[in-house]
């Protein structure tokens, strides 16, 4: 009986580990290939085994062959810009939906939720037109603007605010707090886990975004990391260049990768109650 249990556990252990390794193979390859010497030749390029002296030549060449610094700066500006505005719009809207009483509240709430389905990528054509009209074509603001409101964030925060007992706010009001102080010192601190979860999901989504920035920017100075990587990848032909591409891919992924492995639990939990980006 006991033996059967042990064998079962061992089989499970081996199977699930194998699946996880196969699942991670693309990343294992990326890491190996990015450190492989450039002269190594193409034929064994796919080998996952690091049978060579590692070198950072690929990274150096990748770094020098595109404007990585510029792309990093643009991407960071976009990600932080979107998040900063989102945090304001969703907090205010969520407060209204959770705590205030006004006509058409339910109707408006569903109207907000519509953005969960009609997500910005599907509206690239009309939004591009709007950006041209507003004079925001080929600007970083143009890349950010469609994401300034977030139905998902509003929803998440509304649920959180609703779960906070009103007594806390009433006490604060009796002590003479204004609504802003109530929000600042009572509601926001208590909603911190939800705000962090939303921030992680938002940052990941916009760090990784490609199609919209590609549509709405034109000059090389406004491009983002994903756009740089895509043209970098498409430009490569021979097998020997794959070490370079692996290094480039790694450079684009690295910040999120490091954050993820440092705050695994936080990331996993955030995505667990997120669903929609």
């Amino acid at each position, binding site marked *: 009986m006991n033996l059967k249990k042990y064998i079962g556990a061992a089989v499970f252990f081996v199977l699930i580990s194998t699946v996880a390794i196969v699942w991670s193979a693309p990343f294992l390859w990326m890491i190996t290939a990015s450190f492989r010497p450039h002269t190594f030749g193409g034929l064994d390029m796919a080998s996952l085994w690091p049978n060579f002296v590692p070198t950072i030549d690929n990274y150096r060449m990748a770094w020098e062959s595109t404007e990585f610094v510029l792309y990093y700066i643009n991407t960071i500006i976009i990600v932080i810009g979107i998040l900063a505005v989102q945090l304001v719009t969703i907090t205010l809207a969520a407060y209204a939906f959770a705590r205030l009483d006004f006509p058409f509240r339910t109707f408006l709430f569903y109207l907000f939720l519509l953005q969960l389905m009609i997500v*910005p*990528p599907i*509206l690239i*054509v009309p939004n591009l037109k709007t950006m041209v009209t507003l004079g925001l074509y080929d600007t970083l603001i143009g890349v950010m603007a469609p994401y300034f*409101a977030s139905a998902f964030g509003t929803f998440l925060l509304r649920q959180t605010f609703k779960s906070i007992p009103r007594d806390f706010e009433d006490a604060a009001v009796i002590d003479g707090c204004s609504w802003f102080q109530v929000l600042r010192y009572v509601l926001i601190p208590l909603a911190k886990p939800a705000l962090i979860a939303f921030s992680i999901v938002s940052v990941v989504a916009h760090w990784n975004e490609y199609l919209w920035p590609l549509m709405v920017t034109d000059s090389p100075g406004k491009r983002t990391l*994903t756009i740089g990587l895509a043209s970098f990848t498409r430009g490569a032909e021979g097998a020997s260049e794959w070490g370079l591409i692996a290094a480039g891919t790694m450079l684009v992924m690295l910040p999120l990768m490091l954050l993820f492995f440092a705050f695994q639990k936080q990331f*996993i939990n955030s995505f667990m*109650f997120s669903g929609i980006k």
Partner: protein
Amino acid sequence: MRDNTTTHGKKRLVKSFFNAEHIKAWLYLSPALLFLLLFTYYPMVQVLWDSFFHRPYGADKELFVGFDNYSRLLNDENFITAVKNNFIYAIGTVIPSIVIGFGFALCLTQSSRFKNCIRSLLFFPTLVPLVAAAALWMFIYFPGIGLLDYYLAKLGIQSTDWLGSPDNALYSLMMLTIWKNAGFYMLFFIAGLQGIGEEYYEAASLEGAGWWQKLRYVTLPLLGPTSAFVFVIALIHVFTHVDHVIVMTLGGPMGSTNLVLYYIYQNAHEFNDLAKATTATVLSVMVLLAISFFSIRTMERGIHYES
């Protein structure tokens, strides 16, 4: 929820728009509403309006053309192919990635250091940009020397033209999508499974239910809301992500990996046929609206459930 409306209903109704609380509410909603209006509601109306106009080549003005754009679109072989491809792509990615995600979740529900580590590895593809995943998978599919052919050759399997053949290319993209999303859906199933009380399984055990019967009669029915929620997100994903098509195949070979959003992008960005891109957008929005109509409650319950 506070509900004063019933207690002093009539009074409030008379004061209606102008009391301080209402003004405050509109004020707080206005920033979010402004951006939703500009970039969600207005474009939805705008594309519908624009889809009835067309500027023929060389003309300097847009002309009202009725449903002309629609018939042009529906007679465009490329569009029809894109719709068909999207349909195959939807069925072939949504169902497998949900089934695999569910399978992963079944194995990894209980937390332990080892299982958490496996979870992270399986989830990780979700975090990387689709463009980066596409770059890695291009090498995986590289004919002859790529990761897949290299290791398949060791098993004695001949090399395959994964991305270059019209018969394989769409399926190759589908494998990438399944790989990237299964770990994401796994998380929702883990959350769902952790929400099922131990007492249900104890009761089933007392009745003499085996592993399969517990899965069939306890787990699956109780996971109904989670599954519906995951299904909707997966479906939306299928219509809104084409980065890998742009990086890996550009819709080819011979249109075999053209998806609707890629078709829209291509007509707007390369072919300068804005009327077609606009009209295809209208149809996509209608499909998404139909999905929303049937699933908004599911979504709401789903998010509820996760939080």
